[in-house]
């Protein structure tokens, strides 16, 4: 899933400060799963905004909505009515959401309520980690099923580097050396020969370096 985290409240209060009628818009997709932007978080943020405004002596006008997804044009329709009288929208989807709202509603100011952090998964309740960098050409089978591009600090394809120590990365003892994990796993799989071949230079054109990306499925297009 896409993992995101809420921006600090003060940053959000400052963003929406000039606007009276606010809509807090959540998303039932990834950000619900990572507890950053689902219905529950919409309720909490809206309540925080109301308390803040009451404290300033203002009568708060904050509406709430949580869309099925904020990354599909058809679900944007759910916003059409509620957004009409709003001065600003605070979207707590991943950064795709506020961009969709901005693209659909020309006259509405949109703010991102989250920092979109990475593509990853949960390690335990409340702990999330990065697993994929969306390079666009998956080759993790060469590495025992683990991704050195996302999980090695240097994205080395022929690691581990000289900074690997006791299974940890040189940048921090909190960071696993994925190359140690790859090494251990290939060892168990009896595929050590994979480690003796030099992996050649990667073609990054399928990654962000090749410019903004698009996938077209002719079989699905109407």
């Amino acid at each position, binding site marked *: 899933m896409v993992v995101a985290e809420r921006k600090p409240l003060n940053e959000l209060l400052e963003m929406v400060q000039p606007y009276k009628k606010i809509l807090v818009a959540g998303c039932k997709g990834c950000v619900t799963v990572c507890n950053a932007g689902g219905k529950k978080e919409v309720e909490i943020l809206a309540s925080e905004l109301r308390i803040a405004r009451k404290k300033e002596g203002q009568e708060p006008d904050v509406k709430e909505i949580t869309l099925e997804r904020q990354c599909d044009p058809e679900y944007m329709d759910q916003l059409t009515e509620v957004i009409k009288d709003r001065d600003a929208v605070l979207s707590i989807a991943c950064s795709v959401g506020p961009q969709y709202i901005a693209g659909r509603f020309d006259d509405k100011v949109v703010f991102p309520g989250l920092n979109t952090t990475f593509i990853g998964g949960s390690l335990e309740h409340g702990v999330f980690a990065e697993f994929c960098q969306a390079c666009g050409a998956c080759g993790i089978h060469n590495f025992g099923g683990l991704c050195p591009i996302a999980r090695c600090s240097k994205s*080395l394809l*022929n690691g581990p580097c*000289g*900074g690997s*120590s006791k299974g940890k990365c040189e940048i921090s003892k909190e960071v696993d050396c994925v190359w140690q994990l790859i090494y251990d796993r290939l060892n168990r799989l009896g595929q050590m020969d994979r480690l003796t071949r030099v992996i050649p230079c990667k073609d990054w054109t399928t990654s962000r370096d090749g410019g903004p990306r698009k996938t077209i499925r002719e079989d699905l297009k109407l």
Partner: protein
Amino acid sequence: MKSGSQLEKVLTGGHFAVTGECGPPRNANPDIVRQKAAHLRGMVDSVNVTDNQTAVVRMSSLAGCLILMQEGLEPNLQMVVRDRNRIAIQSDILGAYALGVRNMLCLSGDHQKFGDHPSSKNVFDLDSMQLIQTVKKMRDDGKFINDQEIEFPPKMFIGAAANPFADPAEFRAVRLGKKVAAGVDFVQTQCIYNLDRFEKFMQQVRDMGIDEKVYILGGVTPMKSVGMANYMKNLVPGMDVPEEVINRMKGVGKKDQAKEGIAIAVETIQRLKEMKGIAGVHVMAIEWEERVPEIVEMAGLLPRPQV
């Protein structure tokens, strides 16, 4: 001859090679490089010029190399893949050769987190292994990475680093073998303080026949003080400084610690000279170039061969 460099001639001539190191200044003053050059002249066969080492901005390695050449020393251009994509890398190789550089050391480079610009984007378009392949391809095939022909190809003597003390330990020799397969001609190791562990590494290297395919130069860094020894032990990733080395430094008075550090370095060189599969030493006297002459003198490495 692959490149015709002095270092290549010394090594292929069967001599025990000695290389030195020069870290360029964090400013634009060429005289600092010249001063360091003066200490190393006649003492070593070739001088590595570091490339923004520990990710701290310094005068470029290539500029440092050029100044060394003006001073009559043969440089070894260090290049890290952290700061350049494949375009800049190949461009710098062409430029370095055009200016007379004949040796290159291919490195990943320390992560910028350690440096003075931790917020920078890292490139790592290639890794050190792929950099070796690239320099070799340019030299032997006369081609760029994209297979286009190079009309006048750069012919470099290709070096790489090896850290026998990083983990997983048993993979280190294998990875060195990979660098050899990628096309490396000589290897300079991480600073050696744990000679017993290094022996084990070399045994594995010899068992795999790697020492017959590449020239291995053992890395030696004299320690100035107990403080430096502790720093190396605790804060430099992939460094193995055994307790007995620390204790030996501690065992002498503060004013004699530098002398003791140099004695340890000389003894290390003497053991490396006797070690099968070791073709030379790489003396990295960090901001201490003025002590290199006495180290190589005491280790019996003078005069340097004229080849």
